[in-house]
């Protein structure tokens, strides 16, 4: 079988130790530019203006995640797959950092059915929040676990009504 030249070169560079495949890969630039909370009765939702790799999320299995948290209580929304809700000490300082991602990913349990990403558009995400979220300070953050490392956005604080 003939190897594609690019593949072959990647292998050669990897073995030579001068370059590892994916090692220098660029990470997606994740950002949250605004967050708005909504409430009606017991229902709550949040809408984030975001910048992420939208077309890649549509085309390939791009492990984008949005987390929304109040203190240590969080809900995590994978771009594809069910949401997870729980509590995590990693969030106590108000931010999920690179070193905390692995532990954080093991925490929580499946969220109720209605807790989901409602809209995924190139520039915004709308999510339905669990009923355990209450009015008050809330934080949103995007991250992706990639072969070349974690990519994390800024955190964005907003008030959930």
């Amino acid at each position, binding site marked *: 079988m003939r190897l*594609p030249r690019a*593949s072959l070169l990647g292998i050669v560079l990897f073995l030579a130790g001068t370059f590892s495949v994916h090692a220098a890969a660029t990470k997606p630039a994740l950002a949250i530019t605004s967050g708005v909370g909504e409430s009606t009765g017991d229902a709550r939702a949040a809408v984030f203006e975001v910048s992420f790799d939208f077309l890649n999320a549509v085309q390939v299995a791009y492990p984008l995640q949005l987390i929304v948290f109040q203190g240590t209580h969080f809900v995590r929304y994978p771009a594809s797959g069910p949401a997870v809700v729980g509590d995590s000490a990693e969030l106590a300082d108000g931010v999920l950092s690179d070193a905390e991602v692995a532990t954080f990913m093991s925490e929580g349990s499946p969220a109720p059915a209605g807790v989901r990403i409602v809209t995924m558009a190139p520039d915004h995400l709308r999510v339905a929040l669990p009923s355990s979220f209450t009015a008050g300070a809330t934080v949103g953050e995007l991250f992706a676990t990639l072969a070349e490392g974690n990519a994390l956005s800024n955190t964005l604080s907003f008030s959930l009504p």
Partner: protein
Amino acid sequence: MRGRRIIGRWRWTATLAATLGGALLGLGLAASAATPSFPIFAGDPIDPTTGQPYAILPGLPLLLPQPDGQFAPPIVDPSKQGDIDLVIRAGQVMVGPTIPPPIATPPTAVAGGVQLVAGSEIPFTVIASDGDPTTPYGHPLPGPELDGIPVIVGAFADLDGDGVIGPTNTDPAGDADNARELQESNFLVGRQVAIFENGVATGTIAVAEGAPLSAGGLRVILTAAAFVGPFDPAYFSGFVPNGPAVTTALPVLPGLDPNRIIEGRARGGTILPTVRLGVDLEPAFDPPVDDPVLGTPFALPTDGSSPTIDRATVYSGALSRFRFVRPSDAAGFPVGAPVSPAPLYRGAGGVLFEPLTTVDVPDDGPGGRRIVRLVPVDLLDNVTDPPPGATATLVAGPGLVIASPNVDGDPSRETVAITTAAGIELALDDTGGAGDSGVSSTLSVIMNQGIAETLAVNFVPGVSSPTQPTVRLAEIVGDPTSFVLRCPTPKKVVAVVEEPQGSVTRVTVDVALDGKPLSTVDLQPGVAPPGMALPPGQVFSGVVPMAPPAQGLLTFSLVAEDAAGNRSDPVVRDLPAVTSAPPVVPRVSLTPSSVGAGAAQPLVIAAPVVDDCGATWVMAELDRGRGFRRLARLRDDGTRGDAVAGDGIFTGPARVRLRTPGTYRVRVVAQNAVGRSGASDPVELQVVAR
């Protein structure tokens, strides 16, 4: 290959999530490169400054930048014309000695692909061509020269459904919507990578945008581009072929500098269809329209007539939520303004919508309503067809009422069924009197106990009259169930428009087939057709001639306009266009509906028959317990009990003698001029003891 080559700086970079790999388009690469080893470049004009073939789009002249690097305007060299290097076909195509034409029936897919939603992808085949001008598409180049070279496939959407990607003056809107049409040419709706092997690269591409199945879906075109050259470790880490780009036809001329488009200078790994790909489409300049020199070279038809590209139809995905929209206004896209992506949603009947996030409601007491439209959308915000039973609960915030619909008497909360992609119109009003509703409020949409949408409402001082007319009723007279191509029959459309001043001056009907415009007709002020019960308002009607060329979904989009130029939201009605159809008998009336048992009793049967080809034989049948048997022939000639000749109501007298009391079934069967027949649902005749 003949002289041609591609483009400028479209860069399709590969940023892999894994990294960048190689494929891109680019152009203008200053490289050395061994073009002779790539037959795809044979005969192409060579740039003397680089020693490489020029990048020229197929069928176009060479376009070069000014000395400052900007294409303002491009320098046109008509002595050098682009030939065909790449051809893309929808579907997995077996490539033999010839390149097949664009597919006869475009494949369909569901928006969103398979990673985020339960959608689907569009299969494609990219074929390297020798550009032989004696053939429509050139001959395939099955050699190994391109093996391992990535090719990027890009999808562009015909958002306005005019059959062309990008700005054009040939559509019904002329030049009025050219700036908006830059949304089609300047932004991808999907892209994917495939790897050449023996001159062919295959794969599947996910497309993010779609339109309702009921509206015919969203037509997209598939294009392709690749850098062709050797992999040089000193050039972009060896992951981008060191050579000029080749492409299919494209709706825009890409930019030129690969250094600006390839993330991280391509220090990634191998580019593969399964890894993240960075794509940066930077148009060198907006596609010209009716340019004195170039004409309209980038507008690409979606009908399969463009030789190097192909197309597919994308339907929206499953309902995710409901959202508010407003009709897109081409005037909102000013000519010459910077082009940034703007959300446009193709909805029922091909109507183009934009998001509606805020609305002004006059704080003037009763009256002065504001009409908003709520439509079903999928996860990616494409307007979609809702499943049966879809409902939304609307909750008005303080100071706001849902004036219509309001079936439960509580204007603060309303649960509505949304049965079509057209969604529903809501009338919003302020509570109390003038100036007492506060500054703002919200209208929330609840779905499955979650908030699906929130519309911000600003209360504004205002006159107590609507600022726009509202089409309260729109009907195709006669309740036709289809338009029969074998028997084309103009349809009469009736509209009732609400506007307190009664100053509606115009109601237009835009007719489209599968979203492609067919005709536009102005309705005339009039009165209600006989037998039609209409709501209060100004009545407009007119006959809409049309000649759909093929089967599909006909849509009639009605918009009213008042003397001040205020336009209503469109109201859409649809009608399938079919080759032939059986007669439709929507109802049957019996007079009387109850007769005595024993003796012969007179009975009059009447039924409307809907049939474009003309009903030639209509018969009432009675089931006495052993199946339907003929009872009486019905006529529409004004005789033998028929009141009005030619009104579509077939009537006939009968005498029935039924010995046993009970319930008997009666139906009406009709046959038309082309031999198709249809029957009504049975109705019940009560026979009582005397």
